[in-house]
């Protein structure tokens, strides 16, 4: 099981949880499990052709997946996945 940390702007789509436990051997599997459980989340994270949106970054523990194996990055038990979208406060 890995824990996916949900950033504030997206918590409304996961029943207000700050973190969701999912199973998955890779980041792709874990994220698929997440959006399968919470379908409203999908369009905020992924484009229509299934790509992760450019203003969203995924981290496994403290490393950006772009510098690991991207969505094929393997997960160990207890790993933390962070979804980090860009925020700018104030007047968006």
């Amino acid at each position: 099981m890995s824990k996916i940390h949900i950033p504030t702007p997206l918590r409304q789509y996961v029943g207000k949880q700050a973190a969701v436990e999912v199973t998955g051997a890779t980041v792709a599997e874990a994220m698929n499990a997440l959006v399968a459980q919470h379908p409203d989340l999908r369009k905020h994270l992924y484009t229509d052709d299934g790509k992760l949106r450019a203003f969203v970054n995924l981290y496994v523990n403290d490393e950006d997946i772009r510098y690991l194996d991207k969505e094929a990055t393997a997960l160990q038990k207890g790993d933390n996945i962070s979804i980090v979208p860009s925020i700018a406060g104030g007047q968006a």
Partner: protein
Amino acid sequence: MATTTEIPVTLNKDEILRYSRHLIMPEVGMEGQQKLKAARVLCIGTGGLGSPLALYLTAAGVGTLGLVDFDVVDYTNLQRQIIHSTADVGRKKLDSAVDSLKAINPFVNLRTFDTKLSSANALELFREFDIIADGTDNFPTRYLVNDACVLTGKPNVYGSIFRFEGQASVFATKEGPCYRCLYPEPPPPGLVPSCAEGGVLGILPGLVGVMQATEVIKLILGVGEPLIGRLLLVDALGMKFRELKLRKNPDCPACGTHPTVTRLIDYNEFCGIRGEEKPVGNGVPEIEVEDLKRRLDAKDDLFVLDVREPHEYQICNLGGYLIPLNDLPRRVNELDSSREIVVHCKMGGRSAKAVAFLQQSGFRKVSNLAGGITAWADRVDPRVPKY
């Protein structure tokens, strides 16, 4: 990273006494305080983040502090923009900020720029300072500041907030990443709500802004470990701090090995914003507040549906039936589709989405109250509080 000036800067007796708590620490000392005095820092924005930034940098004795802001103090700012006070409502933020800062430390040279930072003025402006502290509130300016920092070789001390979460880092140093290494593209407009819609815990920009001020001071003094290549994430509710590694992206369009950003661009276009933002009207049928009033007074059989949150209903309401927007799919069977339904929220955005949803669910007699309860307070009944 220390400042570049070669001219030795001296402290007079008053300054030595004023900064004594800095001077007696080996990490600062006379040499450090002189570096602070020689430093030129530009604060973009004197609002939520800019307030603690400017206040603490002034107190610390930064020699030259530039302030960029074109805005006017609004009553709703006072909950978090602590450089401004009640008497300043309606004044230019720059004037209000200067008064507060001069009162704290008359030795700081304040330079004010009553302008909107833009591609036309940013490069020239940044060249006159050593460090840029970004306290802005919108994506186009974030990208502008980043690109201008990369092009002028100035570090960008970054902080951003949303509700009760914040981010802080130092971008655009020579070896470190820039903002575009992290976020090559902005979110489409409307996808991330603003403070006016999402709200913000008043203390949050205080927490993050002081972190920015700390990083500015560390860069000037050349002490400690700055947040270069590190993204600090703050969750104020859990009081949890996490750190993520940021890498310089060799393919970054701004700071990579083959940069494609060689000049400043139209950032509004880049962020997909054209012209003035209007409240979201997605083509659903609308009713104006005056018409609603007239029809309610005439005792027409209208069902008013309020899709705001319960805590908003407590602030003010039109006596509508409350189903928060996110609960609507689950509770739609509480509504009678044979009746005429007028849907409202605070400003008309959420209710427009609700109307679209109801139409898709087969409701034929449903319309959106344009401008929401805010428009009602403005044009029909001024006794209704605005928030």
